């Protein structure tokens, strides 16, 4: 069974991530978010598909204007990736996903960045930074496709 880590920040990124849920049916799936708030709901949604949540981890919330929190988030995400040792990491952003991809690559995971659908004019800043390190790099807007980096394979809507 593939061990998969799916991770994003709370809010729109998380909503988008969960819309991909059928893609990881049958895998051992570890969920991580920057809020502890979603655990109950995600467990219910996963159970409704006859699947299981291997673990749920809340990491520190941060953005690029909160440097101290960003460092803490990086350490927490690195610790999570070390603990779970995922074979595959999937993220819709933002900084928590970036850190997961960087840490995952060091440990030999295959990684995927799905850039947020909110970024329709240009790629997100975190996507521009994380994309080159991801094995699969996708935008949700055909206009932003640049060959396969990022590629376009539909959207979460």
């Amino acid at each position, binding site marked *: 069974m*593939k061990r*998969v880590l799916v991770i994003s920040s*709370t*809010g*729109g990124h998380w*909503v*988008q991530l969960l*819309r*991909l*849920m*059928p*893609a*990881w049916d049958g*895998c051992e799936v570890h969920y991580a978010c920057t*809020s502890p*708030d*979603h655990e*109950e*709901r995600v467990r219910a949604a996963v159970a409704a598909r006859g699947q299981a949540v291997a673990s749920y981890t809340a990491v520190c919330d941060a*953005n*690029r*204007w909160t440097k101290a929190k960003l460092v803490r988030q990086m350490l927490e995400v690195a610790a999570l990736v070390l603990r779970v040792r995922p074979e*595959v990491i*999937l993220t819709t952003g933002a900084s928590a996903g970036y850190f997961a991809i960087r840490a995952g690559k060091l440990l030999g995971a*295959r990684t*995927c960045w*799905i850039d*947020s*659908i*909110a*970024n*329709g*004019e240009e790629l*997100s*800043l975190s996507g521009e930074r994380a994309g080159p390190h991801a*094995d*699969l790099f*996708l935008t*949700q807007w055909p206009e932003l496709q640049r060959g396969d980096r990022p590629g376009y*394979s*539909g*959207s*979460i*809507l």
Partner: protein
Amino acid sequence: MIFLTVGTQEPFDRLVRAVDAWAATHDVPVFGQLGRLAADSYLPRHFPFESFVSADEFQERLEASRLLVGHAGMGSIISALSAGKPLLMMARRAALGEHRNEHQLATAARFAGRPGLHVAADAQAVPDLIDELLAQASPTPGGGQISPYASPELVNAIRDFIHQRR
């Protein structure tokens, strides 16, 4: 019930003020989820609010609402579409210190005109649009809901990636 939500990060005074001005002259109940308020943030006088609500409370308030009013974030858009509720959105402007960049303008422009999604170009447009949308919105909207999952094309691409041999 109108549910106002401005996301979980910065406050969005411009939208909160506009909705408060509308609430001052209407009997329709409003509830606001106003984000991380600053010391000088505008506090509404005509409807109850919280900085944050739990995911469960968010869902309950969304389902109980006739109209969702929000910033032009994907969270608001997907919530409204999947609950089959009309959304009135106004973009946060980086130029006004409301966000880190102007991507909400792009989001609003791209989604404007989809069934159920409406854009207020500025705060002055908000009260009339609320009136207009409440007049249209049926209290128990049927249909208009979207699938809870991404396009099959994207789901398949991710599934293939997960099971791909390196």
